[in-house]
């Protein structure tokens, strides 16, 4: 009998003390550690606002601000940047690194989602200040949630230049793994929910560790986006938006796209564009560092890149 009480007491104390039963671990091959950091931190050409040749840039040429997702880095949009360059498309790409990302995992732990989104608006403001008049967004996963947050609180209304086009790629509102919705309860117990990555390229460009504190931040952002979408909001005047969503996405539940479609309206009250795509990939526009890529995945990626480029240069 005493043993049973001892066991129950130990279990309760373990849960209530919020012990981290899955500690943060990393090595030098991971983005999580101090050795590998996001390239944009040392290469100023990733962002238009820090590009060494920015003084010579054509201010009438469209700029696409590309925003990656939670735990990722600017690598997520490098294929699109290369597509634009290789096809001589008259567009500048500006690959923004979210706050707390692309550095050591401790930086992610120390930040909130408000810190994550700050570099996005900083880049937008810098481009406006530099005189660019055609600014666009291509956002993936959590990058999409960040744009939803900005749009729902009319953050662009006070700007002299409004976004021309916004392309949402697998934007997150509801995660596929519903345990994340209980992260406030499970998080303190688990401490960390590392993802399984075997691909060395993936390990170098995505955080392997997912500390609970950062998942709580992601959950809070998703929850906020959901509420904003359920209340409904309109895009800035003349802003075009299109939602792309994988039908079988292991990270973002497809109901996210339905929520966005229901709650996000053009400035004239009409619905935004939507395309549910046949793909099993999360952020189907990024094919590098995947274990397997089908021909259909490549075709879909190129078609989406072309559609984005055509719309922006239209």
């Amino acid at each position, binding site marked *: 009998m005493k043993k049973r009480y001892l066991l129950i007491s130990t279990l309760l104390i373990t849960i209530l003390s919020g012990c981290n039963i899955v500690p943060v671990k990393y090595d030098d091959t991971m983005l999580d550690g101090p050795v590998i950091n996001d390239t944009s931190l040392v290469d100023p050409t990733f962002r238009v606002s820090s590009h060494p040749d920015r003084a010579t840039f054509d201010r009438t040429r469209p700029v696409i601000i590309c925003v990656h997702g939670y735990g990722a880095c600017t690598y997520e949009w490098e294929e699109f940047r290369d597509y634009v360059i290789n096809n001589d498309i008259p567009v500048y790409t500006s690959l923004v690194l979210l706050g707390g990302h692309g550095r050591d995992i401790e930086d992610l732990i120390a930040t909130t989602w408000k810190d994550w989104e700050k570099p996005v608006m900083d880049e937008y403001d810098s481009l406006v200040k530099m005189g660019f008049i055609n600014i666009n967004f291509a956002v993936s996963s959590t990058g999409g949630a960040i744009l939803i947050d900005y749009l729902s609180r009319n953050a662009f209304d006070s700007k002299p230049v409004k976004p021309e086009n916004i392309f949402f790629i697998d934007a997150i509102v*509801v995660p596929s793994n*519903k*345990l994340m*919705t*209980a992260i406030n*309860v499970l998080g303190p117990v688990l401490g960390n929910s590392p993802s399984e990555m075997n691909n060395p390229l993936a390990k170098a460009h995505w955080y392997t560790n997912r500390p609970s504190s950062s998942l709580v931040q992601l959950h809070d952002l998703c929850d906020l986006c959901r*509420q904003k*979408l*359920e*209340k*409904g909001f309109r895009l800035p005047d003349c802003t075009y938006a299109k939602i792309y969503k994988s*039908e079988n996405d292991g990270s973002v*539940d*497809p*109901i996210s*796209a*339905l*929520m966005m*479609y*229901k*709650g996000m309206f053009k400035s004239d009250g009409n619905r935004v564009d*939507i*395309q*549910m795509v046949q793909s099993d990939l999360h952020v189907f526009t990024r094919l590098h560092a995947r274990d397997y890529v089908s021909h259909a995945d490549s075709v879909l990626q190129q078609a989406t890149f072309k559609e984005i480029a055509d719309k922006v240069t239209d």
Partner: protein
Amino acid sequence: MNKKCVLLYISVMMSLLYQNSTALEHLNIPVGIQMQANSDLQWGLTAGLSSDLILKGHPYFTVSYTSNRIGARFPYEVKQDNYLFTLGWMFRPGKLIDPFINIDVGLAHFDSEFEEFKLLKTNSPILDLRFGLEGALLRKAIHPWCNFGISFITSSTVYPLVMAAGVNYDISKGLLR
């Protein structure tokens, strides 16, 4: 459809009870309203049945329907419906405070509404385990209750943690006595 089912259930039970007054002594037929918090806040109806003659009234059976169609917090919520069949066990049936445990099986549905989302999987099974407390007030006719549990199967609209609360009126103890 659901309202009709509930009305039919109540009518059948009432006619049975009137025909056999001894059954009335042993049957518990709670009907009531409930609020459920899972992926969204839902409101609904519930109707149950248990008998003192079956294992001293410990087991019970409930059907319920909840939805966010009525009382939605925001205008653009995805419309959801949950249909639940519940098998439960009351530890202290008939007492002022009665702890209970139950297993729910059922169906969760949401409206995809638009042609663009026709391929979304809008129906998914529900299987959850809940623990709760029920009270018996006013000559055991009024039963406020609350429960908390976990869903073993999650889906677009079914999250792992579930809470519910409601109040039932036992028509065998109240109206017909």
